[in-house]
Structures are given as C-alpha cells and as structure tokens.
C-alpha cells in the first residue's frame, strides 16, 4: 500500500508511519513525503494540493496528523455540529479533506484515494509520552485549555520532557521518537484511552481502509 504523509519533520513522519502500520496491521510504503514550512493556514491549503497530487500519482491513501497547539481540543459534542466546532482543527481538517476528495474524479482501475485524519493534542510529543506521564492525556490538556493555560510553553515543555532539551540533535530526536512510537504502537488501546478523539479518529479512519 502506497501512502502520502504530511508532516513538519522527518521524525514526525517516522512516528506516524509506525502508528499507521500498527493500526493497519501491514507495512506501508511512503510514496511521497510532504513537508510544511509552518503554520496551520499553510497546512490547510497544502492538504488540498497534496490530496490532488496523490490522486494523480496513483497513491492508495493519505494520512494527516496535525497538532492542535493551543486551539480547542476536539470533543464528542463537536461531532454533532453540522459544520464542526469553531476553532477545532480536527473538525476543520476533516471537512477540508472530505471536500477535497469529493472533488476528485474517478480513477480508472483504481479505487478512490483513502484518507485518515488525526489531531495530536496539543502536539505529537504528547502521544509519544503517553503512558509515561500521568497528566499526558487529552482530558488534562482540555482542562488546561479551558483554564487558558494551554500555550506555546506547553508545547515547549513537552519537547523538553521528551527529548531532554529544546536543542536536542536530530539524531537524538529520531532515536527517542522511534523508541516511543514503537512503544505506543504496541498498545493502541493504551494510546486511544487517553487520546480518544485525536488518535481515536485516526484509528477509526484507518480501520475503514
């Protein structure tokens, strides 16, 4: 199975690929590695272009996992709103992906491009620290958001806790990312329990492929 993944860094992509393979129960080939320069606005615009690119390139699937940063984390109540919850990135990107795939014409001899969307709250580092730190859960970060305490500093603290420092070398980042990605991929239920929406949606999408 050939897929495309959009991420910010090589290390993030490596972690997503491990999770995707664990959920699907089979190896996947990263047909194209997409990188975004920065910013949510840019990522949204790129998603549409990447879906189009993968569609024409004959890929089987597209996986997007974003960071919610300091925006409202997804909640069950969002799924009942016709246009999603304002400011929720998971709601927003799911709509964008749905619209983008609907606009693609049929491919001869190949099924439609499959898609899967997840949202790490507040960042991928939280998933990778799952099971190691008691407060590393969507519920805890949602509470922090409600209290107005979810900020860039939250992200920085997560990075420091995961990599040891903000200045960790790329080698160390990759090594620690792979170690933790394999650990959480071996216990998908253990990751979904604390991250039931951001990771749960990704898992659900992939299980329908």
């Amino acid at each position, binding site marked *: 199975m050939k897929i495309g993944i959009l991420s910010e860094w090589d290390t993030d992509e490596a972690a997503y690929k491990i999770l995707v393979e664990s959920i699907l129960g089979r190896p996947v080939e990263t047909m194209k590695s*997409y*990188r*975004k320069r920065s910013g949510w606005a840019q990522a949204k615009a*790129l998603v549409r*272009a990447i879906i189009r690119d993968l569609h024409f390139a004959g890929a089987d699937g597209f996986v997007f996992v974003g960071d919610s940063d300091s925006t409202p984390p997804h909640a069950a109540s969002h799924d009942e709103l016709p246009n999603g919850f304002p400011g929720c990135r998971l709601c927003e990107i799911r709509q964008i992906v749905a619209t983008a795939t609907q606009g693609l014409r049929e491919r001869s001899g190949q099924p439609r491009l499959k898609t899967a969307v997840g949202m790490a709250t507040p960042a991928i580092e939280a998933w990778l620290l799952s099971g190691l730190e008691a407060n590393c859960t969507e519920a805890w970060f949602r509470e922090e958001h409600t209290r107005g305490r979810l900020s860039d500093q939250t992200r920085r603290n997560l990075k420091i806790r995961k990599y040891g420092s903000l200045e960790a070398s790329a080698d160390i980042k990759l090594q620690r990312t792979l170690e933790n990605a394999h650990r959480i991929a071996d216990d998908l239920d253990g990751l979904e329990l604390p991250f039931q929406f951001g990771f749960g949606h990704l898992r659900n999408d992939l299980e329908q492929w």
Partner: protein
Amino acid sequence: MFIKSIKFRNVRVLRETELPLGRFTLLIGPNGSGKTTALHALASFAPPKWPWPEGFSVGLEGDRSTWEARMELQWIDDGSSESISDVTTIFRYRPPEGQTLEYQRPSGVDGGAKSKLRLWAKRIRLYSFNASRIAEAVPLQPSAEMDPSGHFMSVVLDRLRDLYPERFERINEALTSWLPEFDRILFDTPSEGQRCVALRTRKGKHNIGAADLSQGTLIVLALFALAYSAQPPSLVLVEEPDRGLHPRLLRGVKDALYRLSFPEESGEDREPVQVVATTHSPYFLDLFRDHPEQIVVAEKKGNEAMFSRLVDRDDLDGLLDESPLGDLWYSGVLGGVPSDA
C-alpha cells in the same frame, strides 16, 4: 537568438535528460540535482575555443570502454534579421581523457549565421556572486568586466557613470528604492589607479566603504551592474541571485533579471538577454506564480537527475489554486526536493 534546449547524456548526474530553456528560466531542485552542472555546461560554450566547450569536465563514470558523454544544444532565432532556426550542435566526449572528440557542426547554416552564433556565444556569462570579491578594490581597466564572482564590479559601475550617466542615475534611483538608507553610489580610490565602490547614507551623508557594506548590499549592487549594463551578455547564467538577500528584496531581484530578459517591458531598447537562474528560495519561487512556464524542476533519483517543465504537469492549474508556488515546492508536491528515493 537563444538556446532552446540542451540535451545531456552521461554528463555527471545528467545521464539522459533535456533542459528546456526560454528567454527566462528558473531552475529549482535539491542539491546535487544538476542545476549547477547545467549552468556550467552552458557557460562552457563561450569562446575562446568556440565551438569547443572549454573548462568543463563531464565526469567519467561507468564502463570506460563504452562510455560516451554528449551535449546537444538547440539554438533558435527569435525573429531578428538573419534567420537561424532550430540549429543543433552536438558534442561528444569519449574516454580515456574525456575530451571532445566529435563536434557536429550546425547544418544548413551559412557563414553569416555561423558568425552570428559565434558572436552570441562569445557573450555567454556565468555568475555566482561572492560578496567578498565584489568588495575588493580593483585596478582601473578600460575593458574590464565583472567576473563570475562579481569581482571588478566597481570598475564596471565607474565606467557606467562616465559613459552612460543616465543608466548610472537609474541605478541610484533603484538603490534608494531597494535600500532606502542609502542615496548614492560613490567611488573610493584606495590607491592610485584603483577603484572601490562606496555608498552614501541618506541621513548624515556618510560614505560607507565596500568593506563595511553588508553581503546582501554588495550582491544588490552586482545585480544592478548586470541589469543596467548598456551591453549586457547574450546569456546570463546566475546561481542563486537571491542569496543573502532579505525576502522583501526578492521582487527587485526578479525585476532586475526581467529587465535583462524582457527589455521592452522596462523601456530598454536592446536585444533580450537569455537568463537562466537557480534558486533554493520558496519566497523567490512564489513570485513566479503567473509564469509557471518559466520554471524547470530538477528531480534527483538515486544518482540520476532529470529536468521537467512545471507547465507539463496536467494538474498544475488545480494545484496553483490551492497553495502558493513556494509552499507547493517546499512540501514536495511539485517534486524537486531532497529525497532518499
């Protein structure tokens, strides 16, 4: 007249590919994807040993007994007096030394046209600006021209001031627009018979010598010297003209290069200069959204690199509706990014 394309076979990483060229071409691609090789190959066709490529190594790889490298240039006349259409010159290199052994002369071209080709090729120039070299004081030589690093720029500007004062004034106007802290180009004489450029500050009217100017400022001056030249080269090959410049200055860089390629659009009454530039800047690429036909993507796969025109993508219009060109390139949608593949 301009070069319509150059085909490569076994020229370093360019194993079998064709680089299509227009009046203006912007090459994008990862490091090691043959952009510089292509520029140096084109530059090698300038005399003195015309038509033999000079100072260019194609690299020797593979089975040396059967190895052959080849470059094939297609020239075209864009409608000026003597018509030369689709002239092809082919160069073959063979082992053991890799020297040119065969040269296929343009067929169906008369002596006058050949002479025209030769004169055109004589004015091919390659630039890869180096701020340190631009800043150096240089001896006053009446025929000196800017070398590939930008060395001798001070003498070129000094001569422009004397022979074409109206052009020199236009550079001063451009200077105040690009770098508003300065209002005039001046010249120092560090020793007898030498020149070195200096800039006068708008406030306080202080002279800032070349050695104290920023690298970006010096590169801007070199671009001015090129773009406002009264007798520019026929083909300008320029590596990363945006190097060291603030992103807001990149529109000016594009304008300067377009001044060469599309002189009629800037009130210049002269032949267009063919320009081939490279860049690694998504910001610079963003400026060419309306001209995807000017973009060529260099793609590296393993040890082989290939060129393709951006406009040859079937889905380009849809992609350009979605995202800025620079983002599409950086993300990998357009290709031309570093890859393990």
